[in-house]
């Protein structure tokens, strides 16, 4: 299985590589369109600020490459947010894969949300073997509201999308690579998607 992590200069991607290594898979970091297109699975990570991350994607042409992928793609954290229609962070237009707009938590709660929260209403084989209300690790200030593409829900200030799916595109707001055994199971499920 050829596993590629899209490398566009967006923060800590070693952790994702190491997480797959612990599962027994070697993931390749790549910014090469050809290599990304040829992969069996593509991970689209992202940490940091949305508009600068999106600018890097556009500058390298990887925005179009990702939009056109046919194999299973997993966006993580900011990666998931950039796969949405837009994000309020830096008034950024996203890749438009998920038909929802990412917005900021209000100051009624502490922002960023940092720590372990629960996922429920699990609706995808991505969550095979994961129980309702299992814990996952999150760090984020912006969130995708509940929509028709929601496949997992977390609650902070209100219920919101902890994961999204459209066709071959999956996105998770949490960090599976840092979510202990539950996260490892989700990464394994992603590799085993039919």
């Amino acid at each position, binding site marked *: 299985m050829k596993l590629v992590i899209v490398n566009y200069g967006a923060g800590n991607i*070693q952790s994702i590589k190491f997480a797959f290594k612990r599962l027994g898979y070697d993931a390749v970091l790549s910014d090469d369109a050809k290599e990304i297109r040829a992969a069996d699975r593509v991970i689209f990570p992202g940490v*940091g600020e949305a508009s600068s991350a999106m600018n890097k994607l556009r500058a390298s042409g990887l925005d179009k490459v990702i939009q056109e992928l046919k194999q299973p793609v997993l966006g993580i954290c900011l990666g998931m947010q950039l796969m949405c229609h837009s994000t309020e962070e830096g008034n950024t237009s996203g890749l438009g894969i998920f038909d929802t707009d990412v917005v900021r938590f209000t100051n009624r709660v502490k922002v*960023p949300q*940092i720590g*372990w929260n629960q996922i429920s209403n699990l609706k995808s084989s991505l969550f095979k073997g994961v129980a309702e209300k299992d814990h996952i690790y999150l*760090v984020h200030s912006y969130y995708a509201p509940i929509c028709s593409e929601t496949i997992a829900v977390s609650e902070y200030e209100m219920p919101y999308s902890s994961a999204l799916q459209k066709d071959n595109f999956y996105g998770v707001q949490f960090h599976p690579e840092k979510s202990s055994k539950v996260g*490892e199971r989700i990464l394994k499920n992603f590799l085993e998607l039919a």
Partner: protein
Amino acid sequence: MLTKRIIPCLDIKDGRTVKGINFVDLRDAGDPVELAQMYANEGADELVFLDISATEERRKTLADLVKRVAEKVNIPFTVGGGISSIKDVDVLLHNGADKVSINSSAVKNPELINELVAKFGSQCIVVAIDAKQINGEWKVHLVGGKVPTEIELFEWAKEVEERGAGEILFTSMDHDGTKNGFANETLARLSTERNIPIIASGGAGNMQHFIDTFKDGKADAALAASVFHFKEMEIKDLKKKLQDNGIPVRL
């Protein structure tokens, strides 16, 4: 529901784990990577590695350690100690650290917080604040709590948040090493005034202290070292006890 976090802190010197009692009198307590894995398996929610080495090779030793931890450990971890530049942070994050914590360097050059946040994002920038009471006023201290400043704790915490830090790690020097409980009154004020998570540090001695710091201190997370290092309590037992007391935890 977002849960309260339990965070063991590993003090690191020259790649080995130590624990300071009031930041002096160091004792060796093992290999950091092994200890980190053990804590992760026992249910720790996060780990903090605080580097207190003073050698010239410290940056490289720390980067190597961070990489070894990131390879093995499946929970998030923060690295702090002597971090003073964008370059320092870049190396640590690149090697697999999830967050970095800055302390003295932020006090000396507050603009560093803004620069780090702009480059890496709020989510990975923790500002650690060491403070103790002098004539009834909480004053920020530097260099592991040894050097007093004129800076008032609550004003500094406000500035830290405004400059974009994602979290505050507050250590009361008056409580650290005493095992008499956390500085809950002060923590509660920090947690109420600020809108970013507050990690309580300094004073953990028994399970009730953790219950108190989450209930009375309104802390979002609690950090401790020696009670875990010397097996005075197991993290699993602590989290069960917290749950029994109505505090949301990950079990």
